[in-house]
């Protein structure tokens, strides 16, 4: 293998890997998060790292925003499924606490998909 071949492999393989990673992610990085509760609907920017307590149907849920991601970090629901879902980090991703009727969806650059079936 020549030096040129090695250089080619060194650049091409990571390039392909990066391309594949970006291609099979459902969407792109988000700029804002849309939060819906039984009492309000608001859009919060994702650039500031912060936490907020939001009143829901059962009680208060805590939502964290950190480095363009958002998640539920506490909630009064029993299953805590909303917390186990972890960070939402791409445009179009949804996290929800159904019992407490609070959802967050990342919005920003256009998502590749109009909808996700799951």
């Amino acid at each position, binding site marked *: 293998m020549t030096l040129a071949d090695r250089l080619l492999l060194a650049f091409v393989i990571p390039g392909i890997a990066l391309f594949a990673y970006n291609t*099979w992610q*459902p969407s792109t990085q988000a700029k804002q998060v849309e939060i819906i509760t039984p009492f309000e609907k608001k859009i919060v920017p994702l650039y500031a790292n912060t936490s907020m307590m939001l009143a829901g149907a059962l009680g208060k849920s805590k939502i964290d925003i950190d480095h363009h991601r958002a998640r539920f970090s506490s909630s009064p629901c029993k*299953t805590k499924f909303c917390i186990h879902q972890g960070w939402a980090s791409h445009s179009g991703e949804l996290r929800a606490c159904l019992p407490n009727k609070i959802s967050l969806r990342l919005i920003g650059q256009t998502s590749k*998909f109009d*909808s996700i079936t799951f």
Partner: protein
Amino acid sequence: MLRTLLFQYIRLILVFTSVLFTSACQQKSESYSNSIFALGTIVDFTIVHRDPAIIQRASQSIQQDLDYMHFAFHAWQPGPLSRINQLLETTATFTVNPSVLPLIQTSKELSLQSQGLFNPAIGHLVRLWGFQSDFGPEDETPPDSEKLQQLVSSKPSLADIVIDNVQMHSKNPAVRLDMGAIAKGYALDRIIEHLQDQGIQSAIINAGGDLKAIGQHSQGRPWYVGIKHPRQANAVLAGLNVMPGESVFTSGDYERFFVHENRRYHHIIDPRTGYPASQSQSVTVITESATRADAASTALFIAGPKDWPAIAAAMNIKYVLFVDAEGNAEATPEMLKRMQEINPALKLISRSLP
């Protein structure tokens, strides 16, 4: 000769100008998206129309329709279906609430086609597992196996329900209806019909991961949908163009479940065993009727890797993507042709229906 050419030239200019004017006068279609809590889940929808007033009215009608159907089809809160369950248990004949009768009739047909794998009569089993709750199972442990066996051996089935015009009775007191595996699909069909009645020609509605679309995106292309990876939160298995009028439904073991002693117990109960179906991770189907798609995705999930093609054929489902418990995927050749941007990590093979 020159005069003729001049006339033809002027005529061409006139036609071209009129086309330009017509396009300029047409109002641009607007796209409106919203998310609401309904049917015990999140319902996302996008409506495309050039008149904002019609969009606004249609948006309100979606919420109203969903709220009504949520009330009518709820299995454990007071309402038409829970009243029917009380009466079915008595085995006496009664008059059925007309808001629920068509759903029960359709369910009977689909249950028969699925060879009983789609079985909304197992409400007692679903309740025993704790999944008839807005907040998930109270006690996150599997139910007593003897109780489960007792319910399975009572063999509740929709074939036990006898319908005579608007009258109904059950031959089996163990029948308790839970429409969780079909109500969403039925609701989406009715909502799309209602939207079309209001003049909406393009829309997509996603109720907790199951969707139906009509028309196309405001950019003039088909609706493009991702199929979620059953085990990776931020990944998809593939993309799909959804044709006007089609429904895309997925049943998976990852949405409602609890973990007990390192084992996952999810909400899709196999009526033959009384336990959650264990041989599948997810099943995605495409067909026009959302009602059929809903019932079929559940039936195929329960059927598992050996039997899903036979059940799909019996239920007239041509497009299927099946992921087994090990994460290996099979798709019908028709589905395979439609899948785009297939996840390179997916072990996927083609499998024809019998």
